[in-house]
């Protein structure tokens, strides 16, 4: 062990600790700018690497949000870079819209964190069958059409049921945020 190793390891430990602690927030930010969950892992990998490469430029004060804000700036560029790769063959929002959304998202990081806490509470209040249906459409590789076919139900009707549950959940989240319960 020497000072170079210790310095590198200390820096690395600090970085990993911050990334692990705030990955959900950064991931939420990335997801809100991506058209599907499938690409989020790829982008998060690039974000992790880019953040580590640039970690020397991260100047932390005592605010716990500093890392999230900084990582979101890095993530924003990674999302845009990734978008350029998939925009040719998919229906995606244009670059200027993603820029607008990223700017707005960076100013609502605390709200987003409160929303995430509220969703978890609201999800727990749904009936088991409702929760299962709502989550099933978000299972990687699944789609409402496939689930409908498996259940022998009309896809449009199922989609409408899922959307009703999403409304219910959204309402619950809004109510909790308004009441300051999270």
């Amino acid at each position, binding site marked *: *062990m*020497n*000072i*170079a190793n*210790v*310095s590198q390891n*200390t820096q*690395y430990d600090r970085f*990993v600790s911050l*990334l*692990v602690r705030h*990955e*959900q927030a*950064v*991931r*939420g930010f990335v*997801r*809100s*700018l991506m*058209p*599907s*969950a499938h690409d*989020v*892992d790829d982008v*998060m*990998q*690039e974000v*992790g*690497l880019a*953040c*580590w*490469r640039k970690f020397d430029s991260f100047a932390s004060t005592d605010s716990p949000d500093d890392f999230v804000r900084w990582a979101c700036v890095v993530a924003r560029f990674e999302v845009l870079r990734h978008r350029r790769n998939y925009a040719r063959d*998919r*229906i995606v*929002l*244009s670059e*200027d*819209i993603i820029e*607008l*959304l990223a700017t*707005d*998202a960076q100013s*609502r990081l605390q709200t*987003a964190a409160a*929303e*995430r806490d509220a*969703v*978890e509470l609201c999800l727990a209040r749904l009936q088991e069958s409702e929760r299962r249906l*709502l*989550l099933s*459409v*978000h*299972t*990687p590789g699944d*789609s409402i059409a496939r689930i409908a076919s498996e259940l022998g139900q009309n896809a449009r009707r199922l989609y409408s049921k899922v*959307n009703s549950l*999403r*409304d219910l959940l*959204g309402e619950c*989240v809004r109510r909790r945020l308004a009441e300051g319960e999270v």
Partner: protein
Amino acid sequence: MDRQMASLIRAYGDAEISPEQLEWLEQTLRGDPAAREQFLHEMNLRAVLEDAVLAQGDATDSHSHHASGVAAVNTGRTSIVARWSFAAATVLVASLVAIALWISINNEPQIATITDLGGSVQWTSGGGHVSHDLTPGHPLHGGTLELPSADSWAELKFTDGSTVSVSGPALLSISDRRRKELHFRHGRMSADVHPQPAGQPMLIHTPTADLEVLGTQFNVNAEAASTVLAVNKGSVRVTRLTDGKVAVVPAKHHVVASVDRTKEFNATRHRRAETAWRSQLPEGIVYGEQTVNDESGDACVRATALLWRGCQRNEQKPILLYLAALSVSRGEQSPVKLRAGARFRIRGHMESPRDLLVGLTTHHLQGGFAGKHHAYRKVDSFASDSGEFELELPVEEFTPEAPEHPNSAVGLGLYDWWCLTLNEDAGLSVFSVELLAPDEPQ
């Protein structure tokens, strides 16, 4: 909530949006901040649901999913290191070519070679060329070796096989004259000198003494006001510069050559090694600022900044250290032996607590420089709310800085003690340092 907007956002998130719907969605998002807020709200809820699905599933998969960024960094770190290594190798090749060219132009006789080094080490050649990228095997002609940090050390081998180890902070100039002639401005040196040709002793000049060496093993501690020479084998002839007095120091004896001519200048037999030690601040400060503990009024040492430049094999950019270093045994005092079961007790204060790196410079009790050893302590293991701390570190916890150094500090003599914080000024002040013998109570 705008239902039509919600429906479009969900269609987008479900990848079921048509091009026409997307165009309408974009137009709305572009001009309506409330629509963007609704979009981000919906997508955030979706992100939590997707996370919940993963958390519900296979725990291992979920873990690896969440750790994707971290895992990528681990993998990426290798590639980053590989790229750095490549860059370092390129720089090394360029440096070697430059050195070869420089040597061919100057055609100076080689006096010594660096056989090993660690920490921050800088070489300035007689022509003023400065090298930070020293590696073992680096040839030395006339020039100055600078070791600014407490963890710096270098071993030199002369063409006749004599070796010199220098421990930082230190400054050593090598004369380019044919016989071995060193100007040791300050620091600690340990030398093992092979028998020299008759009439051509090795010469070492310090600020207060001239040493003539015919063949011996000895340690030198040089400061502006005094030089301590401890001879382990053979003998060394010393001239005190203030009055020209001469002393011949035989094996197992030491002498102090001070600028104060009223002080004794006689060879004295080495004392028995002690197994306990306590700092006597402000005496012995090697690096750091002497200050006063506000509460007790006692002297203490405050860590001060030092830019650590590393050396070639560390392949990294400079690191800012905040360092406090104390001299433990300079040769005229009893040597301090590190015994198994002994421990250091460090009392101090940090304005903004940080992890601490504590280090030792050690020497062989009957010989020269042994090595540098470190112990690293996370801040949460010892810091208190007030910033004051009392930390105990067993000697066994110290590990060698380099593979060439002894695996354990146990059994070695303690030369220097030091501690530092990395990159940030924690406002570190050290009130006292003690080496507690194995049988001393907690």
